[in-house]
């Protein structure tokens, strides 16, 4: 569990975008964990990275930013 102080220092550095990334990441992680790990056999680290990558992509799409560098 993370404390509010720790979270606050993260938010000061990365702002609202960082916070939404974390919230969406936690949501994806808890909601799709069993399904995803069963289906694709990902280990903990791979699973975390995948969720973070997807959360970042989803937020970029919502902000209308391109998801790939040109």
């Amino acid at each position: 569990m993370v404390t509010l102080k720790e979270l606050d220092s993260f938010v000061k550095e990365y702002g609202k975008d960082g916070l939404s990334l974390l919230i969406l990441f936690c949501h994806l992680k808890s909601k799709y964990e069993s399904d995803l790990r069963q289906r694709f056999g990902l280990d903990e680290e791979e699973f975390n990275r995948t969720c973070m990558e997807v959360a970042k992509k989803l937020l970029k799409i919502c902000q209308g930013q391109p998801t790939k560098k040109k």
Partner: protein
Amino acid sequence: MDHIRIQRRPSIRRKKKMLNPDGSLSNFSVNRSSNYLKKGRSLRSRPESSVVKREAINFLLQAPTSGEIRIAYIIADNLYTNRDHITQLFEEYQRRNNQNISGKIGMETAQASLSTIQTELAWTVIGGHVPKELQKPAKEMLANFMNTLTSAEIALAKQFLQGRE
């Protein structure tokens, strides 16, 4: 979200040469392989795990609804706007209950109750700003966020936000 689907690399299984009944090479496999090699990639260097990861990403990209993303945004927006208020409330709460609770009820229970308190305090501040129809899923998402987030995950998020991933 069709336009953002990531193009799949040809599966490793396709590198097996397919033979026509007369013994000649099938056009399909030759074309797929040669196209891949034209891009300067070696067939042998394609790791199987990256293909699995792509599949997982595709699956996840289609899984959450726009409502869930909207809720995440609303929570982030309100937490960000009211962060000073929430921190102040929490510090005040801690000052009042300064007697070492963990000594009485054990560290694990203390941590669990602390995370619930954090969630409740944050919700009392931001709950009013969340639309009525989204209140239940929003509170669940907030509770999940507050209870499960770890320092390692924050470090991972920093890596992604700094563009190192």
